[in-house]
């Protein structure tokens, strides 16, 4: 009788070391501490290297996931990050903010019976290793083509386009309306989830490759798209994001202490109001905070309020837990930090004192009815269920719409009834010659990686246009 080879011991998914919730809920430092080399290699060893890796199908920019994981397994972290760079210029960002559970990790074969490979954690690990210990060697660049491209907006899709096209030998200039580049990565996503130094380091890599970054330029006001063409740009990519806050449109919304999530987070993140008065921008520090919504931005706002010293932070959402669109990891982190959830609750009016400062919000209890057009069960008010939630600060994080500033100033750029730019989903081509668009200004508010995916498709199409003329 031949002896069976000993069954390979199953390695469990290596948990990400994190700051203790009780400590981190009062600081702005990053929550995950990052894998050590040992943890990373051990996690990488779990990958089965499937012949037809479904993880890659789940990735909007088709990173060679088994390829980079193999390099980690071999201890060659520099090679691993370069493998990712072939498809994704921003691994340190994506490793942190991608919804891996519905993308690469959601498709991982190991996930069928247990936990999927921690692809996001591994991506973050190699990007951080490169930033902190790498030799700074840049990816190779094609010979100059003499073509000039203007990228409008320096968020995830704009940075992707810039990174792709500079490597193909084109001249690229990014125009950013704010005084710092990074778009939503800088004004929206908080420091504790995505340290701003990481974003600046990614931008600085692009600058080293030759990308020019012009901040303080509001395209549509400072300069128009047609003027950019007159200045000699051969193609323009518009990735200005979904920068128009949605409000609840209920009475009392202009009381002092009520913020859109865009304002609240921009003050905290871009303007560093959490360091007031060292930094000059102020931000109300609520003791009793309510945040409306249930997406990632809602979680970011609630966790920021907690870090700014709130005694109590409640997320108010009109549907139930199952309908919450936020990543499960974000909801989990929020709960660990003591954020409470008032579900099936809808605000009907804000209440204030004689100085117009917020004191509370009147709400209604809801129940769930039949699914609506979004496929989620529709919330229905329960009659007579009015009640008051006391609060001294409220953040409205129910999504963003299309900012009309650029589209209004560009007559021949076709927009749909919601104000989003009409663009070919496969190429990003708009109805205006020489202009491409992608990211939230085309799709409406979505994720960083989807915006990057749109940027990738557009940059392929722009390159083709600049090379062949179509």
């Amino acid at each position, binding site marked *: 009788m031949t002896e069976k080879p000993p069954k390979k011991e199953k390695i469990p998914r290596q948990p990400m070391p994190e700051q203790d919730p009780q400590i981190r809920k009062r600081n702005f430092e990053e929550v995950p501490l990052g894998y050590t080399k040992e943890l990373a290699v051990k996690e990488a060893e779990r990958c089965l290297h499937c012949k037809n890796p479904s993880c890659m199908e789940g990735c909007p920019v088709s990173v060679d996931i088994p390829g980079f994981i193999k390099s980690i397994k071999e201890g060659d972290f520099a090679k691993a990050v370069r493998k990712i760079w072939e498809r994704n210029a921003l691994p340190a960002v994506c490793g942190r903010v991608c919804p891996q559970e519905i993308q690469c990790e959601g498709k991982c074969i190991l996930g069928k019976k247990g936990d999927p490979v921690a692809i996001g954690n591994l991506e973050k690990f190699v990007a951080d290793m490169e930033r902190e210990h790498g030799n700074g060697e840049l990816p190779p660049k094609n010979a100059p083509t003499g073509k000039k491209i203007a990228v409008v907006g320096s968020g995830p899709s704009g940075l992707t386009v810039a990174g792709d096209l500079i490597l193909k030998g084109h001249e690229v200039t990014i125009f950013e*309306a*704010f*005084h710092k580049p990074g778009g939503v990565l800088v004004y929206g996503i908080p420091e504790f989830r995505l340290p701003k130094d990481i974003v600046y380091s990614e931008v600085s890599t692009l600058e080293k490759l030759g990308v020019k970054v012009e*901040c*303080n*330029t*509001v395209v549509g*006001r*400072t*300069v128009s798209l047609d003027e950019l063409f007159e200045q000699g740009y051969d193609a323009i990519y518009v990735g200005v994001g979904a*920068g*128009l*806050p949605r*409000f609840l449109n209920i009475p009392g*919304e*202009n009381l*002092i*202490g009520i*913020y*859109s999530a*865009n*304002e609240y987070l*921009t*003050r905290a993140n871009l*303007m*560093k109001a959490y360091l*007031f*008065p*060292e*930094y*000059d*921008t*102020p931000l*109300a520090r609520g003791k009793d905070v309510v945040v409306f919504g249930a997406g990632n931005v809602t979680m970011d706002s609630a966790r920021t309020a907690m870090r700014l010293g709130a005694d109590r932070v409640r997320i108010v959402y009109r549907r139930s837990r199952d309908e919450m669109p936020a990543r499960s990891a974000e909801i989990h982190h929020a709960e660990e930090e003591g954020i409470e959830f008032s579900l099936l609750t809808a605000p009907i009016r804000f209440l204030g004192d004689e*100085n*117009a400062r917020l004191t509370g919000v009147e709400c209604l209890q809801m129940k769930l009815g039949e699914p609506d057009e979004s496929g989620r069960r529709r919330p229905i008010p329960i009659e007579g269920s009015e009640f008051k939630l006391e609060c001294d600060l409220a953040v409205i994080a129910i999504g963003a719409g299309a*900012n*009309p*500033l650029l589209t209004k100033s560009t007559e021949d750029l076709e927009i749909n009834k919601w104000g989003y730019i009409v663009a070919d989903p496969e190429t990003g081509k708009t109805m205006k010659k020489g202009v491409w668009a992608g990211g939230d200004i085309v799709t409406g508010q979505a994720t960083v990686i989807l915006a990057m995916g749109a940027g990738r498709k557009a940059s392929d199409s722009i390159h083709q246009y600049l090379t062949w003329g179509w």
Partner: protein
Amino acid sequence: MFEILERQDMADGTVVLNEISAPLIAKKAKPGQFVILKANETGERIPLTMADTDQNKGTITIIYQIVGKSTALFKSLQVGERFQDVIGPLGEPTHIEKLGTVVCVGGGTGVAVLHPITRGMKEIGNNVIAIIGARNKDLIILEDKMKAASNELHVCTDDGSYGHHGFVTDVLKDVLDEEDVKLVVAIGPVPMMKFVCSVTEKYKVKTLVSLNPIMVDGTGMCGCCRVSVGGKTRFACIDGPEFDGHEVDFDELMQRLQAYKEQESVAYKKFLHK
């Protein structure tokens, strides 16, 4: 970029003029539009409506009153130094058209913003009557320029130390009684604009005001500058800064301007004691 080429103390040093190199903005800016300025890395973004632009020199001019830390910091910048960031032109320009008789009413540093609009109104062929006011003689700014930009200028001081003793609204009433006024443009402190509007409402004369709510980005992204106009929420940064004064909820605007009173005083005190 954004170097200060000229600097002038006005109104007893409580008001400062800066002419700043900003060729791209100068090329595009029109009367009524504003810029956002940030002095340094830790500074806040402050919106100021431009007092003038010079396309040939590539400069913009701002005139501001020292009211807190950020404006005090601006004041400390000398010729040759620069603002770290200047963004613009932002907001919708004033709609300048030939109407007949137009009255331009300005209070405090609002006169600085009113000046290019007054000039534009006259250049297009209107009969422009200007009324400017301040608490006392020393705080009156741009008197000569306003005289040149208008067909008729009235100056008022609250304490009677110069010109008409009383408020701009007193003179405005007289003008409205005597002239067939087609439009009033009122720019100044919120209470002044509110009172001007309550006067002109009785005379049924359309009145434009330029609002100065607290802002962050100035591009319609955050909603901080929301104001109630005709019962609807509008963003001063992209829908304004000018609105029909008879529709504006001035009381709400005044309250919202107080949002950071406490923090502003903490920051200012800290700055003064440095």
